């Protein structure tokens, strides 16, 4: 399991820059992502966790409460809750209150399906909770192609409800793709209209994202535009520190320019498995399970995998690059799921080394796939059409069995 990880020295230096300290890991994560369920009403083409169907082994309410107790003991001050669609768990609202009551703040991501006026008012009354509504297009056309018909309407209705309820500081969360990269100003305007805050994050080839990555990941030109846009607008926009690979274009972006996987962040998945990061649901990055003896703390502090991740990279092609200090080699998950070595360039390396590396891959190479897939097996209402891009060829029987047939 550790063979592909770059070799590193093991001693933590005293003093020095904070980012260097972070590379050696913390006693508890700064924050972590917790996906409460694999169930989801949508079937987004780029879902990072291949969600859709609930897993029968998902943590029970009592087990989830025990995780929260443990996070409180470890002084993890907030968690990013997601899924799947977390609000479809019947105990979601209970767990939200439970976490807040135990000094664990919650920021949850939702497609908005359950955020009616009453829930919006409830959230507006609750301290210490943040809401992120996912939207991957500033227009219904762009959004619904990847998230499904009607999902733009659902999300904007939720935004309206939150704004009307007087909720403060809620977020619109956007995954930047080739299709929406040109809409950043529109996203900003839409977000401002609701009094919300814009959050944009990087699209990774994780989960079903791997299936559409070639078609949806931003082009080099888009990445340069995005970088300029972030430098101009960075103060008002959250990024989850996810674009640090762009820092190799010049000036460092604000935030933590470092892969935090297993060092300062991690993922707890719906069945309690702990992965190095939310974009790394693969056996290779599985550190343990919260149900095992010692719970989450044991996994975080003593797993072999995390120990391996907590050393600075000293070898590999990237360490010889002039920009290594800026991008630190980029995103581990992006490299892994595109079949690139972890100590080499990010597939979207802004210096172009990623493209070279992708082109040099063995033609026979089968890129790694997650062992998990909770995707819906049958059709889902509003199923995204993007899977058929460039466009689904119109079939004769689409509208009427007789449409288009020469009838004379």
């Amino acid at each position, binding site marked *: 399991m550790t063979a592909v990880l770059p070799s590193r020295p093991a001693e933590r230096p005293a003093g020095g820059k904070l980012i260097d*300290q972070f590379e050696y890991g913390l006693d508890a994560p700064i924050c972590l992502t917790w996906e409460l369920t694999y169930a989801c009403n949508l079937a987004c083409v780029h879902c990072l966790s291949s969600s859709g169907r609930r897993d029968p082994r998902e943590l029970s309410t009592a087990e989830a409460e025990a995780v929260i107790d443990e996070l409180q003991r470890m*002084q993890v001050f907030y968690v990013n809750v997601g899924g799947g669609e977390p609000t479809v768990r019947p105990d979601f609202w209970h767990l939200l209150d439970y976490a807040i009551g135990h000094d664990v703040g919650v920021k949850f991501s939702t497609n908005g399906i359950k955020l009616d006026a009453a829930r919006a008012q409830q959230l507006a009354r609750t301290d210490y909770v943040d809401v992120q509504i996912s939207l991957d297009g500033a227009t219904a056309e762009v959004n619904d192609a990847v998230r499904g018909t009607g999902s733009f309407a659902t999300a904007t209705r939720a935004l309206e409800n939150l704004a009307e309820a007087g909720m403060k500081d809620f977020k619109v969360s956007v995954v930047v793709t080739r299709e929406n990269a040109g809409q950043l100003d529109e996203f900003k305007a839409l977000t401002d209209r609701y009094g919300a805050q814009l959050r944009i994050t990087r699209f990774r080839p994780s989960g079903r994202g791997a299936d559409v990555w070639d078609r949806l990941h931003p082009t080099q030109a888009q990445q340069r535009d995005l970088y300029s846009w972030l430098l101009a607008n960075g103060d008002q926009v959250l990024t989850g520190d996810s674009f640090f690979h762009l820092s190799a274009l010049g000036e460092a972006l604000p935030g933590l320019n470092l892969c935090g996987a297993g060092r300062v962040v991690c993922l707890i998945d719906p069945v309690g498995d702990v992965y190095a990061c939310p974009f790394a649901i693969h056996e290779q990055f599985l550190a343990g399970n919260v149900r095992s003896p010692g719970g989450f703390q044991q996994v975080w502090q003593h797993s072999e995998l995390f120990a391996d991740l907590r050393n600075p990279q000293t070898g590999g092609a990237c360490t010889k690059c002039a920009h290594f200090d800026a991008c630190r080699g980029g995103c581990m998950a992006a490299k892994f799921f595109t079949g690139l070595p972890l100590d080499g360039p990010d597939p979207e390396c802004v210096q172009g080394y990623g493209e070279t590396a992708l082109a040099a891959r063995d033609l026979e190479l089968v890129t790694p796939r997650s062992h998990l897939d909770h995707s819906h097996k049958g059709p889902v209402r509003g199923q995204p059409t993007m899977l058929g891009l460039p466009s689904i060829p119109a079939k004769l029987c689409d509208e009427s069995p007789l449409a288009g047939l020469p009838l004379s």
Partner: protein
Amino acid sequence: MRGVLIDGSPAPAVGQPVAGAVTDTAVPFDPAVPWRKSPSVALRPEPFGALVYHFGNRKLSFLKSKPLVAVVTALEAHPDVPSTLAACEVPEGQHRAYVTALATLARSQMIERRPEESA
């Protein structure tokens, strides 16, 4: 740091800044009055110092050395900053740097002026 990972608006990391470093000109920090760690703030020990979290404004910050953690914790027990630094055996030559670090923490409300003790 904004972030998946880590969003929010953490205050800048607080280390042992170069003596005399001026970072802000807003409200001047008065080391001669009593201070304390804000009651809304939690310190989480880390190998390099501590993670600081303010439950009120949800700001996250870091203390980059263990002696600084000791000083922040000890503020409450002393009438002013110089006596706190002396009690924590901070070498005289570093006092200015510590005052600068504490001023940064005061600006992000991680430490606050202690209400006047009743006589």
